[in-house]
């Protein structure tokens, strides 16, 4: 009953001051909504276990090359097999790789994302097929009849949900394959698989380096991720010692599937986002806490009367806490609505920065985890915002409050609390603003970087020669040359280029040995290596700096030649010509041919410009001398992309109906995708930055001006004692400056602890860091000085006698 009365009284007070209540509600909602949204978003994206039984134990093992995490199956098959046979910390291990599955139809072939896996993948996930069965162990043996398990969407879209699909023979990668099962809707393990094929045991007979795989596994009960990683690294070290030429710089890592698709640095961004959200929530709490504290001060006399009337201390504390409770619970409800709306939008937004459809575990919405987090955040905010006013109420001095005259000025404890609040505001806001600025500027620079290629009016597509017809390299070269001729014969097509990896995309990075350079026999550096059809570079705007481009005379029978980027030439032959120098791919021993540099081209970025790819030099070899069954085509058209696509389709059908084009995108889309993920994070940080700036300005100004306003009487005393206006201004400016400096030391320390590793990861230029570490403190300093000087000047405008009487 008493509680209800207190609740009613608190509600009445809040309703009587709608401006105050609305401000407090908005501030706390801003902080809570960001925290709830971010928690839910990152939880779904990176933290929640996979939606399978024992999902929390499921991990993936993949390779780590020179400290960079690779995902999607990049471990050398033999290394992975050795790992599998020796690892003690993991259970139910199985190897797989994701590859192309060209499924032929009546009209044309269509490319699906297939997973070639050891048979027990389905029992690993404890998932039964919707129709038929999954693989038997025998189906992975040499000579077993080819079988396939279809994904639900593949079955629905490509086979029209045919209920009699089981037993049907379909041509996959040129081989007649029997459909033995269909998996349930939503099952896409390991990542985005559309159909599954057995990984034949015979692949173990292939040469080292020919096949790359990943490994699914479960952590043994009681084993930590760190311990599993330690074991994987130690085994890789032994393998590296055994095969220094192929395994220099290679190691492995164990992580969850959710984290593996984030790539290197995903954990840093996650930590940073959580930190920033936490800081913003704290800022919001401090601001609302300060508002409530100011109210508690105004109500000091009322509290004293209550004490005089015999109110027990806990009732006074609860009286103050009720206001926090009402504001924070209302804020939580509003925040949930806002976060739910933002999560709905996020589902659409994330599709823009992933290749293909989003991962199956990315289900954004207000789930049970989010509700629990919201409850915890609400309790935290109630405590944080209500703590100071409640303390103030519980320790109020009845006598001094009830006496008409006061002893003047702010009490020592209140003064200290205000100083701590301001210092925390400065620390948190400077840290968040620097981190947000870092992310925003780095992303801006990354999205406006020159990759070294032209993208206007250029369409790209991937083409894979997966059938037996193209096993011979000469057949592969012949096909791609024919395709180029077919396309170039069309009047609407200006130029055609073909690369094993498009400039802008991550490329194969083998160890490269440079002739006449110091040679330890191992630890050769890795550079991008791209096969290219002669005549492909100039059409995409890659300029020649020295020597010549590749030509049709650079064929399988002629001297092995390469083009290198200026960055590589500068690295080994600064100030001299690189033409005529030689290099060798050292990934598989020293038996590959020496290749002679015949031209130097401008630097081209292969991969995300926020990664090591930014400065990684590249080597381009003619496809006739480095054949590849997969090439990407770039078609320069006259503005009509659909027409170009149609002509590509016609050309492919004319050459081979079973070869489809896939990953069809404009060249600009290909490059945009590199930065779409961090672009999204950057937009989030822009919101964080704006909210933080508003919270910081209003918070710092609110606390400081409240403090100084409450010291108006003290200003009157000082002036009565003969202080000049300048003395008072200097005093408060210096006090403000001290809080500013302490806050900045803490804030810059926090920003450095989190931001420097992020800056390193994003390849943020030093001038950006310097600018932020100077500019943001200056901005905060301006806010603090304004917050100090404006109320001080206001107090000084009063006559000393009025200031002395100020209540």
């Amino acid at each position: 009953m008493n509680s209800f009365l207190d609740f009613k009284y608190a509600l009445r007070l809040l309703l009587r001051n709608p401006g105050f209540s609305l401000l407090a509600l908005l501030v706390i909602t801003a902080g809570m909504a960001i925290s709830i949204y971010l928690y839910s978003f990152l939880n779904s994206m990176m933290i929640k276990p996979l939606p399978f039984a024992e999902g929390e134990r499921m991990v993936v093992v993949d390779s780590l090359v020179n400290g960079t995490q690779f995902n999607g199956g990049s471990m050398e098959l033999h290394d992975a097999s050795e790992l599998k046979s020796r690892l003690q910390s993991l259970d139910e291990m199985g190897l797989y790789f994701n590859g192309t599955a060209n499924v032929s139809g009546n009209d044309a072939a269509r490319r699906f994302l297939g997973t070639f896996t050891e048979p027990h993948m389905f029992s690993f996930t404890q998932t039964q097929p919707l129709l038929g069965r999954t693989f038997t162990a025998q189906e992975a043996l040499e000579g077993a009849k080819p079988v396939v398990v279809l994904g639900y969407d593949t079955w629905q879209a490509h086979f029209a949900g045919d209920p009699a699909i089981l037993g049907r023979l379909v041509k996959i990668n040129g081989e007649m394959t029997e459909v033995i099962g269909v998996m349930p809707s939503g099952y896409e393990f390991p990542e985005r698989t559309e159909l599954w094929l057995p990984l034949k045991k015979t692949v173990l007979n292939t040469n080292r380096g020919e096949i790359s795989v990943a490994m699914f596994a479960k952590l043994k009960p009681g084993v930590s991720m760190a311990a599993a990683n330690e074991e994987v690294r130690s085994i890789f070290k032994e393998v590296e010692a055994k095969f220094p030429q192929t395994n220099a710089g290679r190691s492995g890592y164990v992580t969850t599937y959710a984290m593996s698709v984030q790539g290197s640095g995903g954990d840093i961004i996650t930590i940073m986002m959580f930190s920033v959200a936490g800081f913003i929530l704290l800022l919001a709490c401090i601001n609302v806490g300060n508002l409530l504290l100011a109210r508690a001060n105004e109500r000091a006399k009322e509290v004293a009367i209550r004490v005089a009337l015999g109110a027990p201390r806990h009732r006074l504390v609860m009286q103050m806490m009720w206001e926090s409770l009402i504001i924070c619970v209302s804020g939580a409800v509003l925040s949930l609505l806002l976060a739910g709306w933002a999560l709905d939008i996020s589902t659409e937004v994330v599709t823009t920065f992933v290749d293909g459809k989003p991962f199956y575990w990315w289900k954004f919405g207000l789930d049970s985890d989010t509700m629990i987090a919201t409850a915890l955040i609400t309790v935290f905010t109630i405590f944080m915002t209500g703590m100071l006013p409640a303390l103030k109420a519980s320790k109020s001095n009845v006598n001094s409050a009830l006496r008409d005259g006061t002893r003047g000025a702010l009490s020592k404890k209140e003064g200290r609390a205000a100083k701590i609040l301001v210092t925390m505001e400065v620390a948190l806001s400077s840290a968040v603003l620097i981190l947000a600025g870092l992310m925003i500027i780095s992303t801006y620079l990354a999205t406006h970087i020159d990759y070294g290629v032209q993208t206007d009016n250029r369409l790209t597509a991937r083409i894979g020669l997966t059938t037996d017809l193209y096993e011979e390299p000469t057949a592969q070269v012949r096909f791609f040359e024919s395709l180029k001729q077919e396309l170039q014969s069309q009047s609407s097509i200006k130029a055609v280029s073909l690369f094993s990896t498009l400039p802008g995309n991550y490329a194969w990075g083998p160890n490269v040995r440079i002739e006449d350079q110091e040679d330890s026999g191992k630890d050769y550096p890795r550079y991008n290596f791209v096969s290219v059809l002669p005549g492909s570079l100039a059409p995409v705007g890659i300029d020649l700096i020295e020597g010549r481009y590749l030509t049709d005379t650079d064929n399988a029978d002629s001297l092995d030649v390469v083009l290198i980027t200026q960055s590589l030439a500068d690295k080994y032959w600064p100030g001299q010509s690189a033409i005529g120098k030689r290099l060798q791919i050292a990934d598989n021993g020293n038996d590959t041919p020496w290749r002679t540099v015949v031209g130097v081209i401008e630097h081209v970025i292969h991969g995300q410009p926020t990664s090591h790819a930014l400065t990684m030099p590249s080597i381009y070899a003619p496809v006739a001398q480095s054949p590849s069954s997969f090439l990407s085509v770039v078609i320069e058209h006259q503005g009509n992309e659909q027409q170009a696509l149609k002509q590509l389709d016609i050309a492919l059908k004319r050459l081979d109906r079973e070869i489809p084009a896939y990953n069809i995108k404009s060249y600009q889309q290909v490059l945009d995708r590199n930065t779409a993920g961090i672009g999204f994070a950057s937009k989030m940080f822009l919101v964080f930055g704006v909210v933080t700036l508003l919270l910081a300005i209003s918070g710092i100004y609110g606390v400081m001006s409240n403090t100084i306003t409450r010291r108006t009487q003290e200003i009157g005393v000082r002036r009565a004692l003969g202080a000049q206006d300048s003395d008072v201004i200097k005093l408060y400016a210096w006090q403000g400056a001290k809080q500013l400096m302490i806050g900045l030391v803490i804030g810059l320390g926090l920003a450095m602890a989190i931001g420097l590793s992020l800056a390193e990861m994003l390849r943020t230029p030093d001038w950006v860091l310097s600018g932020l570490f100077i500019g943001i403190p200056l901005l905060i300093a301006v806010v603090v000085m304004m917050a100090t000087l404006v109320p001080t000047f206001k107090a000084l405008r009063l006559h000393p006698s009025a200031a002395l009487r100020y209540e």
Partner: protein
Amino acid sequence: MNKPLLELKQIKKVFHTDEVETHALDNISLVIEKGEYVSISGPSGCGKSTLLSLLGLLDDSSDGSYKLQGNEVSSLSNSEKAVIRNQHIGFVFQAFNLISDLTVEENVELPLTYRKDLSKAERKAWVAEALEKVDMSHRAKHYPSQLSGGQQQRVAVARAIAGRPAILLADEPTGNLDSKNAEAVMALLDKLHQDGATICMVTHDPRSAERAKRKVELFDGKVVADDVTQMAAA
């Protein structure tokens, strides 16, 4: 002939609140000589605190002349008034108005820190002397919150006299004190007066007013009585 220490002529103070005009002081003329001990009393709202504020240059009059040691001060700039407050006037407030962040010693030193003509050693010596006079030297390192009300007011008196002002202005100095502490503070003011200090005290406590050698009474912003006989007798 010596010039009076304070000389008010035809002083008016009008407050404007919304459309209401309040005449707090109405043609006040008053002279206070060096060494006087004057009490100003009257009912609440008669203008005594306003008069003290004008005497202390804490507020401006609406009209009239105010000479301090023969010099017109009503038209001085804020900065010049601050110098006069600092070097020629000492204040004792009803609510003590000590600064809670500063120790007793620092509070007393505060007005001296605004002066450029004193070295640190001189400041320390003047502070010690002032604390000695009010018998608070033993509490020099304490904070105001650690003192009783009476002790706080003694420290406030020390702060008022530390700069060796020409006049001490006290606004209800015993208003927040119990009778015992009030008596101690009044005894302290008596002693300071005996030692030569000029004191002007606003009070509505008849017992305090009785201790002054000259009693000025205000009513509705006017001087209605000015008993200088005691001073003449003295």
